[in-house]
């Protein structure tokens, strides 16, 4: 994530990128590098450009100015927000995971593909759910299914859009633990999140985004009142609890949030 000369380590480099959607600028002067062992959270309010940044990294959007350069051979996989998925779509977990293999012309999976799907589902702890319809899973299992689909591509970089949105606290912990394990196995991970206390504070590196990069670095460097006020446009207080930053809304004496 750092802006440093580490050509062998970097997977994607964004240099002076500006991106507009329907002529409305969404991202300006973005300079970021995705490294091979990154575990990075992108924080920012709605409309700050988090999803557009993911699209630049995915290659589904191109900057109007600047450049996004991907190391040859880099495969990037994507896990969508659970809220954007059509849960009534008639697919089982196995069918959904197999969607990341689009190269084969024959509709049915090969023996090797069946084995790969079973292996990745077992690796993520949902090996016995392959024949279930996707709606029959819990929020955490649904998230694991999409991570399994992404991993089936054997990517170097995994991008997740708000992976902890809409799931409960216990599942969120499991998710962060799982992502930490995958990162430890060599997978670079970038995710977006609104959740400063529950997610961002637990990640090793953060990027605060509001159309441009406000700050980047360790949680201690990013989760501080000045950076968060510039990022979210509202004053906050940051306390320390067991060595971790905790963000609180700032209230006046009548208990009203200070805007």
């Amino acid at each position: 994530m750092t802006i440093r000369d580490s050509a062998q380590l970097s997977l994607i480099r964004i240099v002076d990128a500006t991106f507009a959607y329907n002529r409305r600028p969404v991202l300006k002067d973005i300079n970021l590098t995705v490294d091979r062992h990154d575990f990075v959270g992108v924080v920012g309010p709605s409309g700050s450009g988090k999803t557009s940044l993911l699209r630049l990294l995915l290659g589904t959007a191109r900057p109007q100015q600047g450049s996004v350069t991907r190391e040859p051979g880099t495969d990037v996989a994507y896990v969508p927000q659970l809220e954007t998925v059509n849960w009534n779509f008639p697919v089982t977990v196995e069918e959904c995971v197999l969607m990341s293999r689009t190269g084969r012309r024959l509709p049915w999976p090969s023996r090797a593909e069946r084995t790969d799907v079973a292996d990745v589902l077992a690796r993520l702890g949902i090996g016995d759910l392959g024949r279930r319809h996707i709606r029959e899973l819990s929020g955490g299992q649904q998230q694991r299914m999409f991570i399994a689909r992404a991993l089936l591509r054997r990517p170097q970089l995994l991008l997740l859009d708000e992976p902890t949105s809409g799931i409960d606290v216990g599942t969120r912990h499991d998710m962060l633990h799982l992502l930490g394990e995958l990162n430890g196995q060599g997978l670079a991970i970038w995710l977006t999140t609104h959740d400063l206390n529950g997610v961002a504070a637990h990640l090793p590196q953060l990027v605060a985004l509001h159309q441009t990069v406000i700050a980047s670095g360790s949680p201690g460097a990013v989760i501080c009142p000045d950076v968060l006020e510039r990022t979210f446009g509202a004053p906050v207080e940051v306390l320390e609890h067991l060595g971790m930053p905790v963000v609180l809304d700032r209230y006046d004496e009548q208990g009203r949030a200070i805007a």
Partner: protein
Amino acid sequence: MIETLLDPFAYAFFVKGVIVATLAGGLCGLIGVYITLRGMSYIGHGLSHAIFGGFAASSIINLNYYLGAGIWGIASALAINRVTRTRRIGADAAIGVITTASFALGIALLTIFGNKGPSFDAALFGSIIGVSEADVWALVGITGFTAVVIFLNYRQLLVATFDPEVADVSGVPVARTDALLMLVLSLSILATLTVIGVTLVAATLVIPAVVARMLTNRFSRMLWLSTAIGATSGLVGMNLSYHLDVPSGTTIVLTGAVVFLVVLQVTGSKGLRRAAQLDSHPEPAPAAAFKRLPAPK
């Protein structure tokens, strides 16, 4: 009883009609799965009306129906696809403008110049009479082409229908896949229009797919179930058309509707739940897990 049922098979025109209706029902059932899951049911309705404009124009200038209406229909489908992709106006508005204008133009042309091809009623509601050998072969060809397209692009069509963004990331040419689907949809409507009719084609696209969805949670199973239900509705509907002396499109659609009611009775609320919001992107059940805490006092 059986003799009465088999009687019409002595007539060549009826045999041709049955073959065409069965193939047309199966073809619409197959395409209908993608159309309903993509929330494009209205496109089927619109395209059939658009093709009517081509039907009228080709009838007047004595151009082959498949050529004239085919070019017209494909052009309309691609125009809808293009207008929708610009996202300046919604898909429903784009379909509404392009296809109803084409339908109105068709009526105006037929009113001014008179009809030289199949009858107006036959075009609107479908007809068992006048199915030529060329119609049968055209439908066989289009059904075969569609089956091959879907077989060879099964995986790409599935992921582009379920999750276009992930499809794009996975290297699926989403725009080309969408255009291919519009092409086979236009051809299917073109080939089935004379038997099922402009006003009823949309139902043959939607009903088998909805019934199949009520019966299964697997995509591959939904595809063949919908095809089988569509083909059966075509076969039974065409026989009913002969015996009741009612336009074939009407009886085919009513047969499908009866199948829907029977399956609804059998599957109950489970089936309804599956078929509800076929193309929607609702929030998942666990979304309610978070509750906003009240401000401290």
